[in-house]
């Protein structure tokens, strides 16, 4: 009994220190980043595309646009392929094939992001430069690389959502003479909707936060991209590229970029959590 109490106390301390570590990081980022946002004014900091640290102008608008563009592109690619794959695995493929393919897709998550970036630089960037024009380092290249990187997240959560749909719905539809595709489209996707939305949002969180692969293929120029073939810089790249030599207000502005990212990802995760809680509730209804 006494041993139990000691172990419980140790575990509590470990858990609390992990949580307080996270809390301290949060406080630190905000303490370092908030002053410059307040000093330059939120409107100026977020909505000006003028980022010239040496002249003291800190506007991250072009990076926000860069992050949004790259993330949106990644989600288009990630959802088309990830959800498509999830549909094939759960509705059409024989279970033995699905049992092999799903772990393979999940294994993609274990590849280091620098490897994805490297593959992008070596194969994708020259391909885009030669076939579509522009410098190759572009929104499109970053979107494709990120789209592949979010596949494991999107696929495995979508597969779980589709598998959680009661088989009785599927049988009811098939027994009415619906084809597999009609059943998938009209019943399964609707029943799994909240899980699929959660998959998209968590994928989006990954895409927004990814840094290394994006730095390698996005081109990183500080301007609002005019087309998907133009280079761009994202919020994460901005921090990683400049933190090494930044000091003073410049360093603060990079922390403020971090605050911006932090808030975006927090919002995405909260939405994903509430959506997936709702789907759990819906399931318990049945």
């Amino acid at each position, binding site marked *: 009994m006494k041993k139990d109490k000691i172990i419980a106390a140790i575990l509590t301390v470990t858990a609390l220190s992990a949580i307080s570590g996270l809390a301290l990081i949060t406080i630190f980022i905000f303490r370092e980043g908030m002053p410059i946002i307040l000093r330059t004014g939120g409107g100026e900091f977020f909505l000006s595309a003028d980022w010239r640290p040496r002249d003291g102008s800190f506007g991250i608008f072009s990076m926000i646009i860069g992050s949004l563009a790259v993330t949106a592109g990644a989600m288009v690619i990630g959802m088309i392929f990830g959800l498509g794959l999830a549909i094939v695995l759960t509705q059409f493929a024989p279970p033995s094939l699905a049992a092999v393919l799903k772990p393979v897709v999940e294994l993609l998550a274990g590849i280091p992001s620098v490897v994805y970036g490297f593959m992008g630089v070596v194969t994708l960037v020259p391909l885009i430069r030669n076939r579509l024009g522009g410098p190759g380092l572009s929104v499109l290249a970053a979107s494709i690389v990120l789209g592949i990187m979010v596949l494991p997240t999107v696929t495995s959560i979508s597969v779980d959502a589709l598998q959680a749909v009661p088989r009785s719905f599927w049988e009811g539809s*098939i*027994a*009415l*003479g619906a084809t597999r595709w009609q059943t998938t489209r*009209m*019943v399964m996707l609707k*029943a799994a909707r909240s899980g699929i939305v959660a998959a998209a949002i968590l994928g989006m969180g990954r895409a927004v936060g990814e840094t290394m692969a994006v730095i390698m293929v996005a081109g990183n120029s500080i301007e609002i991209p005019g087309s998907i073939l133009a280079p761009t810089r994202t919020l994460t790249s901005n921090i990683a590229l400049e933190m090494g030599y930044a000091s003073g207000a410049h360093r603060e502005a990079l922390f403020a970029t971090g605050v911006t990212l932090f808030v975006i990802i927090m919002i995405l995760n909260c939405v994903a959590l509430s959506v997936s809680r709702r789907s759990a509730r*819906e399931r318990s209804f049945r």
Partner: protein
Amino acid sequence: MELKMETRQLNLFYGGFQALRDVNLQIKPREITAIIGPSGCGKSTLLRCLNRMNELIRNVRTTGQILLDGRDIHDQAMELTSLRRRVGMVFQRPNPFPLSVFDNVAYGPRVHGTTDGAKLQAIVENALRATDLWNELKDRRNSPALALSPEQQQRLCISRLVAVEPEVLLMDEPCSALDPIATARVEELMRELAHSYAIVIVTHNMQQAARVSSETVFMLLGDLVEAGRTARIFENPRDKRTEEYISGRYG
């Protein structure tokens, strides 16, 4: 009288296990046929042969014939989707889709190509009237079907079938998830529907078979032991095994 459906020397194997042995089942139009028997006797399996739902399970093999209006349902010319439209199924647990009441009933017609809004409205109204749900639900057509009571859900599932104008209704213990009052109302509905459709009901409840059906089939261990008019089966069973089951000696 012409038979609506018929099986001839039907055998079914789950892998190496034989679940049905030389079953000859006859289903008359506009009558309720009850299939009774102890658990595991193959009655649900037999039911699911009639709209080829068994084929969704792997390692299932059947031999013999199943006829609908004299035509083999395994025939190349008989499309699976149209077979399942003509031979509809009600499941043990109500399984309305997670859609609105309207979309549930309109589902079948939409799947089979009806897109016209006014036409769908009319079909849905008729189908809901056929199961006495119209007065209860006409103002709640857009509310989610999963919020209905179990009895309403089961009647909605029957409406969903009626909407595609089937010829045969297969019911797999349709009342097992319902309380006695709801059961009585669904049975009443079945008697009304029997004016228009051939109904086959699988039930473990002998009283239910006696109450609703005009034909009864008794199965045991994959064999069709005895079939005949319900009153005759219950009052004067010819086979000793039927008598034993009906008098409650096993099952």
